[in-house]
């Protein structure tokens, strides 16, 4: 059974039609002890089916050490939303519920290369000169 309803698919397809550059959903999974990895992969497959510009790339968290290090991933399921460059946008956990729309938004932002933030905010962010992690905790409902 599809994770996304027919009307959700239609809506997401329309949103993704606004994409400009291709986006890779770099997905990290593991075979054992990660039930939500299966759910996450199904969601990603359904999203990528809605736009030719979205692709899914899967790596094994245990085996693909080089990729785990390259994308600084420390748990699964993990999704890196990557465009022409990696901006450091990550999702941990299956992107269901509210998280799903956040994922679609992230794909659009990366594809367009436009954060949509105000000029003042952008200027302030230019001041950040050392690594800074912004973790947002959310729930699906």
């Amino acid at each position: 059974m599809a994770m996304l309803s027919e009307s959700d698919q239609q809506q997401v397809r329309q949103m993704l039609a606004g994409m400009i550059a291709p986006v890779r959903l770099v997905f990290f999974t593991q075979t054992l002890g990660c039930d939500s990895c299966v759910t996450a992969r199904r969601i990603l497959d359904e999203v990528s089916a809605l736009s030719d510009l979205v692709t899914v790339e899967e790596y094994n968290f245990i085996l693909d050490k080089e990729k785990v290090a390259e994308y600084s991933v420390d748990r699964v399921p993990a999704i890196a939303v990557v465009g022409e460059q990696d901006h450091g946008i990550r999702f941990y956990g299956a992107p269901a519920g509210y998280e799903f729309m956040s994922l679609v938004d992230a794909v659009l932002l990366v594809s367009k290369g436009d954060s949509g933030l105000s000029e003042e905010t952008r200027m302030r962010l230019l001041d950040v000169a050392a690594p800074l992690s912004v973790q947002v905790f959310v729930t699906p409902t």
Partner: protein
Amino acid sequence: MALESPHITAIAIEATEFPDLVQRYRITGVPKTVVDDQIEILGALPEPQFIQEALGALQADDHRQ
């Protein structure tokens, strides 16, 4: 934010899947934002306030040029 700064990583975490992180960061409600393991912002704030909270406390240390 991550899109506008090469130094910023933006990480969305599904809280119910990672109880260890919920405990470590004392997550009692969502959305909750944790900046650099030290600044905590509970709830969704308008953009200017959010940026102020997230970056305000960094002015004294080495995150600014």
